[in-house]
């Protein structure tokens, strides 16, 4: 009798499982990119380039990144979204466990990382969409505050009202005491309220209020200098984009205010910072001219003033900037480009430029001719404030170009080269032999990428 019951229960469970499985829609996306680098400064890691002190030996390496995204869609209103990543640097370790490993002979590393795991559902009662769980997080300011591949745990709710869309988000960036009796007492939280409005077919405007609160005294990453571990920062932002004839124009302005201190007991400084960006793409001949300009306020790190721009970095290591400077346009060595993968190093690795601010921009030309594509750009970078001990604010000028070919619809191969002429910011600051200024950085990349 017991056996019969077990059999019946098993059959029932199987049927139920089968029924549920049939109801699911499986959706897969992913990518793989293999990048071969050659550079005198880059080293396949993250953070600011050590221009002042690097030994400048030429180096080359190959890294690969694979991302797999799987969504289990129960119905039109509910799906589970997951994302995984496998990074490896060729030649780096085998039979081991860790991020970016498994590229050495033998491979077999445990190196599967979870990027995303969240529920995406529509609430039929209020008609809003919710995303709950660990998910991609991007601000609406070209990742200047947070984004460019940043992932965070939280809730994002959005709802459309005709031509307008409203978004509310809450994310817990860190909680030092997770799993203890004081969980939530030393945490870093982020809240976002955002609105978009399509004025017409060709004009769109938006505004937002973000709030970043850090009670995590162990955090050293939120402000790159590591000075402030207890802070409350408010972000007010506005943006617009428009298509005017042959030109696409967009821009934004972000103002920050609040307080930042070394710890709860100290007085700290009042934050009073801002950033502005203007970019345009103009059709010219067979391609497009692209122009970008960016200003990010800063301070003299030798004295400090509260004008430093607060961006979101990782607490594990400030080198992992959870933001980028895509607003500078298509430059690769001067600032961290959002298109980089494992290698994220740049002269400016985060949007605050180590509290010094940014005055920069670029001019470029993009061209696609059938399956061939390419672009060439010139970018310039300076700090927003004079820095004690530096001869100039001017950090350098980058010249870069890339040319690629679409082998298939989803697969391309490209070659890229970038060279920076360093500015006087670095003059007489080298830790190398007296009178020796740092060498100008360069990098070349050959990239094979596949997306689906």
């Amino acid at each position, binding site marked *: 009798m017991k056996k019969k019951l077990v059999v019946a229960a098993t*059959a029932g469970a*199987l*049927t139920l*499982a*089968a*029924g549920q*499985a*049939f109801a699911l*829609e499986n*959706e*897969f*996306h*992913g*990518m793989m*990119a293999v990048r071969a680098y050659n550079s005198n400064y880059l080293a396949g890691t993250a953070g600011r380039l050590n221009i002042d002190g690097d030994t400048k030996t030429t180096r080359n390496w190959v890294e690969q*990144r694979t*991302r797999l*995204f799987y969504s289990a*869609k129960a119905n*039109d209103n509910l799906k589970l979204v997951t994302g995984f990543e496998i990074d490896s640097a060729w030649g780096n370790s085998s039979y081991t466990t860790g991020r970016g490993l498994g590229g050495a002979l033998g491979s077999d590393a445990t190196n599967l990382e979870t990027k995303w795991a969240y529920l995406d559902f529509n609430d039929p009662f209020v008609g809003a969409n919710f995303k709950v769980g660990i998910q*991609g997080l*991007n601000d*609406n300011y*070209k*990742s200047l505050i947070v*984004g*460019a*591949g940043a992932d965070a745990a939280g809730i994002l709710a959005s709802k459309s009202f005709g031509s307008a869309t409203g978004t509310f988000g809450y994310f817990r960036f860190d909680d030092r005491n997770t799993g203890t009796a004081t969980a939530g007492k030393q945490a870093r939280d982020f809240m976002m309220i955002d609105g978009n409005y*399509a004025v017409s*077919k*060709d*004009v*769109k405007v938006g505004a937002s209020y973000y709030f970043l609160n850090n009670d995590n005294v162990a955090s050293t990453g939120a402000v790159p200098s590591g000075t402030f571990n207890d802070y409350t920062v408010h972000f007010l932002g506005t943006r617009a*984009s*428009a*298509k005017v004839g042959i030109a*696409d124009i*967009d821009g934004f302005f972000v103002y920050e205010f609040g307080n930042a201190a070394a710890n709860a007991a100290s007085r700290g400084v009042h934050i009073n910072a801002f950033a502005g960006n203007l970019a345009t793409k103009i*059709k010219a001949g*067979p*391609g*497009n001219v692209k122009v970008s300009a960016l200003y990010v306020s800063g301070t003299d790190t030798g004295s400090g003033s509260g004008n430093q721009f607060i961006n979101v970095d990782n607490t594990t290591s400030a080198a992992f900037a959870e933001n*980028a400077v*895509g607003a500078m346009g298509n430059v690769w060595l001067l600032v961290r480009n*959002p*298109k*980089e*993968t494992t290698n994220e190093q740049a002269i400016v690795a985060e949007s605050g430029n180590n509290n010094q601010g940014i005055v920069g921009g670029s001019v470029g030309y993009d061209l*696609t*001719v*059938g399956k061939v594509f390419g672009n060439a750009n010139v970018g310039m970078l300076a700090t927003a404030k004079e820095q004690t001990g530096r001869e100039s604010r001017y950090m350098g000028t980058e010249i870069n170009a890339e040319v690629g070919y679409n*082998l*298939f*619809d*989803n697969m391309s191969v490209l070659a890229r080269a970038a060279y920076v002429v360093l500015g006087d910011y670095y003059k007489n600051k080298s830790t190398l032999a007296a009178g020796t200024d740092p060498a100008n950085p360069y990098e070349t990349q050959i990239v094979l*990428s596949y*997306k*689906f």
Partner: protein
Amino acid sequence: MKKTGYRLVIILFSMLWAHSSWGAQVKAYVSSFTVSGAQNKDELKPALQTLLTSRLNNDMVTTVESPEKADVTVNGSYVVFGKVFSIDAAAKGRTGEVVARAFVQGESQDELIPAIGKLGKMLADNIARNYPQTSALSAPLPAPKASPDIVRKEAVAAPTADIITPPSVERQAGSSLVSQRIKGMMSCFAAGRTLANGEREYFVAGGNTLQYYRKGKEARLVAETVLDINDKILSIDTADLNGDGIPEIYVTVMNNNALVSQVWVLAENGLKKVTDRLPYFFRAIALDGKDKKIYAQQMNIDDDFYGEVFELGKTGESYELKSPLKLPKQAYLYNFNRFTDPKGNSYFVIFNRDGYLLVFSPEGEELWRSSDKFGGSELYYQRSDRSPKSGWTDSRYVFLDPRIFVSKKGAVIVPQNSGFWVVGNSRSYSKNSVYAFTWSGASLEEKWHTRQSQNYLADYSYDDGTNELLLLEVVKKEGLFDNGASAVSSIKIE
């Protein structure tokens, strides 16, 4: 004595008949299986049919290759739940009465072939045991017409019991097919006029090339034009909006993230562009199977399809958007049509994002959705995301759904592309079929479908006047050093 004599005669005849029946083997035909819950359905159906055909034999039963020669027809089904499967079969006599049934279950795919062996033996034994008593007086049915390209569902059988089962035997009903090979992997097709000399016009496009053909006995390339190297043609449609009796060709063109659509007309030397840089997507749609009109939708700086779907109007030399359509929430220019039931009620039919066919009431309520997926297209355009977000998602793929036709009689005609490699944005369809449905009042019921073709159906057209399908198929996919090949064919629906 008289009564006793009759009885004797009946017994003798019965014995004689029974003897003759037992003496001859029962001829069984195994039809194609229905498969649910398993992958590779299309491959499994004939495989299961072949396996059971070769195993359904004993001293009393033998199998034959065609249903016309058969005494009984075996219909089988193969159902998988998780790892457990059940394979069921029923043998029916010529008038549809069930002669024998049998089933076998298994718990892994390794047990499938032995299970079919068991099923064949059980079914053969049951047929041999039951056939003389159940179908002795069966009358032969007329043989169905043989024709290869249209598979038509039979009408529901007259009720013979409390439970009415639609016959699952598929009958073939008539067609014609002429293929014409075209160089290149083409993606768009539109039919033109039928000329006085009987020649037929059609237009084909792929990449940035637009071609004009006339087809008599053979198809002849009349004109070809190549657009800008960065133009990508997303659709071509024909309609006579200027009323001169000659349809114009409405070409949806994307270039560098912008719509730069064009209108072409037929000129003495072939094709002549009359308007360009129109910021619209185009599609010709005959709502309710009535007049074909050109509909248009726009794109804005962030949205791939912006605002409502409008009818395209022509005033003088300029075009205007007019009469916006009120569509269900998920509908956009490329995924909908509308049909009317006999009572005059209109319903929208759309492909949803996952490829299911949905029917909506005029009030926007979802009334029905298909169990199988339909549609499927490899045609897309890419748009750059304004804000760079991460290392590889700086542009997105926007796929365009294939056409839904509605005939004057209210039939809903949709294609079904399928294939082994359709994952995310990497799509490579390898098979297609075209289906026709009619609205029963509660659901769409299949009327017919075309025989499955081993090619991707890039685009197609349905001619309501001649009841004919015109198909543009990709017969060879584009490779690294090969532009591929396409073919245009027609199927007459009889």
